[in-house]
């Protein structure tokens, strides 16, 4: 069966205060990156899995997000699936 790598980006919803993002933004300002207006800090999760197709891999990872990888109360997520390079 083909192998896929799903990259899942989990971040706090826009409406949820992100104190880590604020600290990073302020630090960037201190370093002279004054053009920075906004920073949000999230998580990057890589999931390697077997599936019959890209769509099937995507569906499986979507379910993983609903059950465990993100908390739908406070977090949004994005999934990018690509075929893994042959070993």
């Amino acid at each position, binding site marked *: 069966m083909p192998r896929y790598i799903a990259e899942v980006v989990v971040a*706090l919803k826009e409406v949820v205060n992100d*104190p880590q993002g604020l600290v990073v933004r302020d630090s960037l300002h201190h370093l002279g990156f004054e053009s920075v207006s906004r920073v949000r800090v999230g998580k990057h999760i890589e999931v390697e899995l077997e599936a019959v197709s890209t769509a099937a891999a995507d569906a499986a990872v979507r379910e993983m997000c609903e059950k*465990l990888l993100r*908390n739908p109360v406070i977090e949004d997520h994005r999934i990018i699936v690509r075929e893994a390079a042959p070993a």
Partner: protein
Amino acid sequence: MKFGIAVFPGTWSDRDCAHAVTLAGHEAVMLWHKDTDLRGVDCVILPGGFSYGDHLRSGAVARFAPLMAAVAEFAAAGGLVWGICNGFQILCEAHLLPGALTRNASLQFRCEPAALRVETTRTPFTATCTVGETLSIPVSHGEGRYVADEATLDALEASGRVVFRYTGESPNGSMRDIAGIVNEAGNVLGMMPHPERACEAMLGSADGLRLFMSVATAMATA
């Protein structure tokens, strides 16, 4: 009365809770996370700590422990469930309570006494308190900032389900200064502060012990 105290890998407040239960004159039994038998307890305590290392999110993994399926069933049948600190985080992740606990606004781990205002006595946990009184109970957490959408917060307030609120400086920046809430039926309480650490005057406060005694009193008169 028999209190069951859940023990997950990484739980550290289990023995303190057992000590508090004993001080209150009741029996404490430990409930292992792999077990599904609640051993006939009257109240389940999900104590503080870092269950499963708090990996991914606090409480996210503990939620799927075999014991939690039994706890959810017990709660649905009206059994008393009391989540303290990490236990509150687990209850939110398990959707037994609304909202979520996020990183403290200060980004610091705060371990200090907190002043809590009792907002309702219509729960077994606060039945012997007085509305508006202040309890001194310590907090000890890095992720205790309660977050929920405005509609949920309004519903909690309107139905009298905010049980404790921080007065004075908030240790974590919780929305509406929320420190503890109950579910709709009133039998599941989640709170960030640690009442089990405030059970002996010698250690700074015995206000926490009152909550343990309140549960037993409420059960006896129910």
